[in-house]
């Protein structure tokens, strides 16, 4: 086997020689090379002006004093750049057109229309929802107002940032316990995302089964379920600073706050008619809806504990 292997290597080596031998081609300027797509005009220029410029063209590596300038200035690469940029523009159009078919980007933009004051007040509301009175989302001609103008509107900025921060804080916590490795970060992120997806699917299924007609869209649901990451981050950070006592205290507080927050928010969406009157209703249908709201709200503290308890030792 070996002699044939060496012979094969030798023959492939010799077949590679002609490609290498094309480098010192200044001896044959202007000759039509079958591998060249365009006429080599720069060598004619260099011959005319006598400046030592490397002959450009496909297959010739630039070897002059200023290779980049020579490379960018010649017409071949200009054309290549124009072609490449038009390809990129076409690709971008294609992607935009197809993205609109799957999920509308403009609807997504609504959830990111936030400003600093909104974020600050919303974070305060997530941690202390007990004094807030009016939980209705204001409408403006049939469309809900952007989160920038109404603190009750759901947004995706806080959940997204909180999720990423949670993954980073989890990495930090694991690092302080010497349990860190880079793939664990991916595992944490994937696990949290998987729980979120499972929650969304279960809630959508139960909403469908109980035939509740709400205006609670999927993205709204994802936004509400993503608010628990804020409490989780607080708990883990306190656990890092003050040990288990701090972790349990802050996590307990955040769990209670998220519970109250979810009940007050979902009550308006799921139990719309009952909440409008402001009294707890006793009908069978409303009771089922109330149970569903309580179940969704009770799942939040459970998940908050489940996703963080292994990070604090």
């Amino acid at each position, binding site marked *: 086997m070996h002699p044939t292997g060496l012979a094969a290597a030798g023959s492939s080596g010799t077949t590679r020689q002609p490609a290498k031998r094309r480098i010192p081609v200044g001896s044959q300027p202007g000759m039509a090379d079958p591998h060249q797509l365009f006429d080599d005009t720069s060598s004619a220029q260099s011959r005319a002006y006598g400046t030592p410029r490397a002959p450009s063209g496909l297959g010739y590596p630039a070897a002059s004093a200023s290779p980049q300038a020579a490379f960018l200035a010649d017409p071949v690469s200009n054309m290549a750049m124009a072609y490449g940029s038009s390809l990129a523009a076409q690709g971008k159009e294609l992607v935009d057109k197809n993205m609109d078919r799957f999920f509308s980007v403009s609807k997504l933009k609504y959830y990111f229309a936030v400003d600093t004051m909104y974020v600050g007040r919303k974070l305060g509301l997530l941690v202390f929802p007990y004094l807030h009175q009016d939980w209705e989302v204001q409408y403006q001609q049939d469309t809900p107002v952007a989160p920038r103008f109404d603190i009750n509107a759901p947004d995706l900025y806080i959940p997204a940032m909180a999720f990423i921060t949670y993954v980073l804080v989890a990495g930090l916590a694991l690092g302080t316990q010497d349990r860190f490795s880079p793939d664990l970060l991916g*595992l944490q992120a*994937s696990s949290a995302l998987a729980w979120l997806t499972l929650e969304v699917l279960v809630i959508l299924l139960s909403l469908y089964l*109980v035939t509740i007609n709400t205006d609670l869209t999927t993205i709204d649901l994802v936004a509400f379920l993503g608010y628990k990451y804020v409490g989780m981050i607080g708990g883990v950070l306190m656990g890092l600073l003050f040990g288990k006592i701090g972790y349990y205290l802050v996590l307990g507080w955040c769990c209670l706050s998220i519970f109250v927050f979810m009940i007050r928010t979902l009550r308006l969406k799921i139990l719309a008619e009952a909440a409008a009157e402001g009294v707890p209703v006793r009908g069978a249908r409303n009771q089922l809806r109330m149970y569903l709201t309580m179940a969704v709200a009770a799942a939040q503290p459970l998940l908050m504990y489940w996703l963080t308890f292994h990070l604090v030792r």
Partner: protein
Amino acid sequence: MAFTLYSLLQAALLCVNAIAVLHEERFLKNIGWGTDQGIGGFGEEPGIKSQLMNLIRSVRTVMRVPLIIVNSIVIVLLLLFG
């Protein structure tokens, strides 16, 4: 706690396969969940049971062909990569 997105996808595929395998005549009719036993008039409340029966029927109808494709791909990939 290795609950990853991949295991969620596996579980979802297995669940959809399980729903697709329920036999209409031998099983669903015997427990009263057949598709022709669910018409309950035009009342306001469809009820959980009829919603569930509708869901099973629609999953079976819609996912029949995509399941064939996805199952074949998964079988080939699992055979190749374990």
